[in-house]
């Protein structure tokens, strides 16, 4: 599945249009084909490892859903044959640490066949399928917005070096970046929802508004997702401001900036063409890390604002010992993260010609 996704990404019309066909391949694809193959293999193996970790973590947790189930079944007078059938249906007949159970688990994981929800009996895939667009919407928008806001702000902050506005910007960014997601979320909630009633109490809305695009629908979605989005973007953008500024300041001290200035390159040219491209290199290395933080933050924010995404599901499923659902949700979140890592790696190699090993 992952291969299909990756292959789809790399061979899609969008990608090939911009990167492979119109431009000489060697110029844009900085990784050669073997390195690319290695990276893809690494991503697949990482996904397998993630599945194993999910398996181990869930089996190490105290409590046993079978006991829970069977308690109810015994109560209503189930026969031993029925109980055994139930156990094998749950994939627990051979004990928690059975190889065959593990293999069945792996097969189900990678075919996205997560089974049925223990509580409501719905197929897990459907529940996740319903929640996925919400999470992707929130995560993607937050990521893009935090970049669009944070990187230029970082550049501007480095530009006004030594002035009051720089100190102001750094202080604000530092404070915002050190607030945890849940604190900022709660503060925003208390003031903007409880006291002033600007934003809605819950953020849930029907997927209808996502799939049928129109201007009022868009406005409605924006209104609903404003608070979780602001919480995520503010903190992430602050982090980007800080890293970008630090990288820019050290880049602006380099000799080639002086050369560029002597060449008569305009200030904007120096900032964006010469300095920003170099400063982006350390920022992208941190980007992978920050993406993981953002995913974690998204889970918390979803719970806080009752955003009907995967994080929300994951949280309640784990509390209810709903193995099937929470395993599926966790696995999918980690898959998204792995795919993001691969893409970031690619961007990094494209930005920096020196990194080719």
């Amino acid at each position, binding site marked *: 599945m992952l291969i299909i996704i990756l292959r789809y990404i790399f061979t899609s019309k969008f990608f090939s249009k911009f990167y492979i066909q119109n431009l000489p391949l060697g110029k844009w694809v900085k990784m050669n084909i073997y390195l690319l193959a290695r990276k893809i293999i690494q991503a697949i193996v990482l996904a397998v490892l993630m599945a194993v970790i999910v398996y181990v973590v869930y089996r190490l947790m105290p409590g046993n859903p079978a006991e829970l189930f069977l308690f109810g079944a015994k109560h209503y007078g189930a026969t031993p044959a029925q109980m055994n059938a139930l156990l094998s249906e749950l994939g627990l007949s051979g004990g928690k640490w059975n190889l065959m159970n593990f293999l069945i688990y792996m097969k189900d994981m990678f075919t996205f066949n997560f089974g049925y929800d223990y509580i409501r009996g719905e197929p897990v895939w459907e529940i996740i399928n319903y929640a996925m667009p919400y999470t992707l919407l929130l995560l993607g928008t937050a990521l893009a917005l935090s970049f669009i806001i944070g990187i230029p702000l970082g550049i501007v902050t480095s530009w006004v070096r030594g002035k009051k506005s720089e100190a102001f910007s750094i202080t604000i960014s530092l404070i915002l970046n050190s607030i945890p997601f849940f604190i900022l979320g709660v503060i925003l909630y208390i003031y903007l929802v409880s006291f002033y009633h600007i934003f809605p109490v819950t953020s849930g809305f029907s997927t209808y508004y996502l799939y049928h695009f129109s201007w009022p629908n868009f406005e409605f979605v924006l209104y609903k997702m404003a608070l979780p989005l602001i919480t995520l973007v503010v903190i992430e953008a602050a982090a980007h401001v800080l890293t970008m500024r630090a990288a820019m300041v050290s880049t602006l001290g380099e000799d*080639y900036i*002086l050369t560029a200035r002597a060449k*008569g390159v305009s200030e904007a040219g120096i900032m964006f063409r010469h300095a920003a*491209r170099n400063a982006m290199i350390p920022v992208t290395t941190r980007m992978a890390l920050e993406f993981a933080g953002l995913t974690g933050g998204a889970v918390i924010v979803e719970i806080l604002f009752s955003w009907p995404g995967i994080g929300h599901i994951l949280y309640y499923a784990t509390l209810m010992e709903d193995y099937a659902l929470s395993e599926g949700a966790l696995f999918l979140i980690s898959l998204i993260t792995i795919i993001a890592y691969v893409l970031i790696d690619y961007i990094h190699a494209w930005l920096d010609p*020196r990194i080719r090993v």
Partner: protein
Amino acid sequence: MEKEMIKLNQGPLLEVKDLSVEFLTDFGNVKALNNINLQIKEGEFIGIVGESGSGKSTLAFSISALLPPNAKVSGYVKFKNDIITSPEISGFSTVKMKRSQRKILTSTMANIRWKGISMIFQGAMNSFNPVYTIGKQIEEVFYIHTDLPKEEVKKKVVDLVKTAHLDPSVLKSYPHELSGGMKQRAIIAMALALSPDLVIADEPTTGLDVISQAKIIEELKRLRKEGKIKTLIIISHDLGVVSQLADRVLVMYGGNIFEEANKDEILEKPFNPYTFELLNSYPSILKTDQILKGIPGNPPDLTKDRPGCVFAERCEFAQQICFETKPKLMEIGERKSYCHFADTIAKDPIKFFTSNLTAGEGALDLLERSDISKNKTLIKLENLKKYFNLRGSASGELFGSISSKKFVRAVDDITLEIKEGEILGLVGESGSGKTTLGRVVLRTLDVTSGHLYVNFSKDSGDDFKDIAKVKEKSKLFKEYRLMTQMIFQDPYDSLNPKMLISDIVTEPVRAHKVTKDPMEMEEMASYTLSLVKLNPPERYMDRYPHELSGGERQRVAMARAFILKPKLLVADEPISMLDVSLRASFLNLILSLRKEFNLTVLYITHDIASAKYISDNILVIYLGEGIEYGSSNDLINNPLHPYTKALIKAIPDVYGMKEFSETDIIGEVGNAIDIPQGCRFYDRCPYRQEKCKNEKPPKRGTENHWYICHFSQEELENIRKNKNQK
């Protein structure tokens, strides 16, 4: 004639009038430039010489209008008819400028930058943006300043690169793929892109090895001949480089121009005490045995206000008046000198400089070389080898398409004898393995094979023991450790910033557990500090390294090395980080310690001139192999190996010009992994023949001056003649 007349009427190309620059920092205002007046006519090559902190770079930045925002300016710089630096438009005042004003300023500047004034920076460092190709960065100049279409720009760039003797393929490579010399050529090509009226070269050869440096100087000379460079300002700390290129030389110190005169005049008859003393600090391969005096004291603290001359604290000729009033830049004919006594000096320089000499006579016998050949031998190296395993050697076999070899041959087969009380110079380019040899001799690195015999006898007899394979915990090894010490290149890195000077100096005492008595240790420390001329020692004992200047730090390092009175001292480029004026006195310190304590010194350097000044014998190393050995005078005056010949020819010397041609040596330093099968110098030798490729060359010459080559001097001469005929 007429044309010249017109030129004269046009006035100067560049005029610097009463320029003063102050930098506002947290530690006070640094007065980087004071009242600089300067006029440059078209076609002139001006050299600016100064040590660190002399303000030479600040002057370059003001001329190219690149002063940072914390600079406070008075006076102005005028280029042709435009004022490019003045209190209103540069430095501090730009911060508060309105946007519209700044726009006008940048548009006028854009016209002057690169079109009028272009700069050659240190290309060996990172003057090129690492993420763009060289070609793109040169093209950028055309896109900013001209409206030429793309194809034409590309054509022009290729032409440019060819004029700088580079292959057009470099245009497609990234900066990290080029060597220092190639990058420097590319920088020159970029600077000449718009055929500017004025080119400023700021330390254009610093960081390059001697041979690349000579090639760059040749290049600049050639470009002048071809008329590609019209006017040049060359800035350097190295008087040798400047004297090779400039017609007129400015000597700067502490933000003032101390002397301005034609090159020959300034070298022959300096009219200023600073110039005189600076010239006396340069070791030169052409000067006969003559003591270098150096300049005592430390570089000036420019944040302080002083009523008198900046140089007065260090000047040997200073009188009361020098400390009380500032001198004026006096004009004596065509020349200018910044001194109270300029008139007196101008009348009879020799009389002034000899009669007023106050110190230094006592040291004059330092260079008297006693005959060391009678001394007993202290250390004998026999076929000493040090190979570094490539750490990825297993992977090397796996990925072996690049290099099939598994070792770095850092030191390969060196046989040598060092007498007691001898100073042996190890000369080589970077990567030649000279530092490794020093460390192997100290046994801080293990020996791969060969013998290292050390004479342990306390009296005149011989007691050789091979310590090449002795274990580190053995008694013999500990004894050897007591006998040896080392000084490092960087005085800023080699001293622990968190330790007091007295603790740093007594560190070996504690390490070797010579004594535990703190009083005794303190006594030893103060005695050693006074030996290295840090007087009075009490002033230094309770300070931290960051409170000392570079020269003082290196002396502290010397004191640390010398506190246990070692027999052998390995000095690894001890002066390369010091200012020129401080170098000579440090070399003299080594000489005086040698004289007093019969110290043996292994002096490792890439600078042949200083090696010649200090050492009795010199060994030239190329890729881990000693290729020529001889007494220093012999080796410099009569080099035998082609490499030594090229190396000596490549030194830009203050006294005298030598024509260095590309044919003297080919390419750049090779690597010590894939060495040629036969002669190690084969790839770069202009005399190479078929037999050099596969046969190891034999040792030739006498016991006291040998070299490794297939050919005798006559044969080499014949090869050269044949080549010239073709």
